[in-house]
């Protein structure tokens, strides 16, 4: 694993999120108010493009360029999906950010996103503490 490869990939993705206005509170608020459908368009085109690309990839190599086995699999179905999704959605709307865009916002100079990032870290920690077996402090802050 080369840190610089992932740092660069993250920078490219952060750039794309900014260019998509996914880091813009007004765009997210407008999506949920149905006054600005821009982000619905972004998500729709992104899903269709990714689906076509992944379908092509399944016919191609099984080994990635860095030598690792390509592993993109559907996530399992479980009871937390909808409830967790609801909680996430409320946070998405209130903060105008998601885990990726909160970090991209920081780079854009929106320093108030520090509050969002701190909140995400706290929520992650709380959830993992709640689900960790007693005495297991792995992955806690």
């Amino acid at each position, binding site marked *: 694993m080369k*840190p610089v*490869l*992932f*740092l*660069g990939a*993250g920078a490219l*993705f*952060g750039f*794309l999120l900014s*260019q*998509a206005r996914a880091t813009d509170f007004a765009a997210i608020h407008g999506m*949920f*108010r149905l006054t600005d459908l*821009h982000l619905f368009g*972004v*998500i729709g085109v*992104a899903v269709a*493009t*990714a*689906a076509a*690309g*992944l379908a092509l*990839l399944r016919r191609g190599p099984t080994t*990635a*360029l*860095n030598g690792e086995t390509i592993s*993109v*699999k559907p*996530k399992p179905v479980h009871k937390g*999906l*909808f*409830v*967790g*999704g609801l909680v*996430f*959605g*409320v*946070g*998405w*709307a*209130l*903060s*105008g*950010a*998601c*885990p990726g865009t909160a*970090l*991209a916002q920081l780079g*854009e100079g*929106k320093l108030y996103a520090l*509050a*969002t*990032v701190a*909140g*995400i870290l706290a929520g*992650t920690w709380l*959830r*993992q503490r709640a689900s960790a077996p007693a005495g297991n402090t*792995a992955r*806690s802050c």
Partner: protein
Amino acid sequence: METWPFWLAGLGIGAFVPLFALTTGKALGISSGYSEMCALARPAGAERWKLWFALGLPLGGLLATVLSSGGAQVTTSSSDMAQALHLDGAAQLALLALGGGLIGYGARTAGGCTSGHSIVGLAQGAKSSLIATLGFMVGGFAATWIAVLLAGGVQ
């Protein structure tokens, strides 16, 4: 440079997913990167790449802002949020932190976020990601309309 039209941004984000898999073998996912930030004190494991990816995101945001027509600028409060919800100062930061907390808690409960579920998962036609994304949307619509009504209604 202006921000991109929806189709160009969608093409870019969508193409990123298979190209990232082809280059690194990994499925794009961001919310679990926060777990890695929480696990900094532990030896690097198989998921450490998520930390580096997460740390790259601000660099991309910075690049976009530097290239934008407005140029780089630093702001400490969201004027959009003040306009939409009539919140500023400490109250705004408190709502951002609360929203962030719900994002972190919800993403770990649902096992992914808007990137892992709503882009990569939906692109695979995964039932799990469809359920999670429905949750994201229902939660987002409900919270937005309740917040708007509490802030003084639709103007």
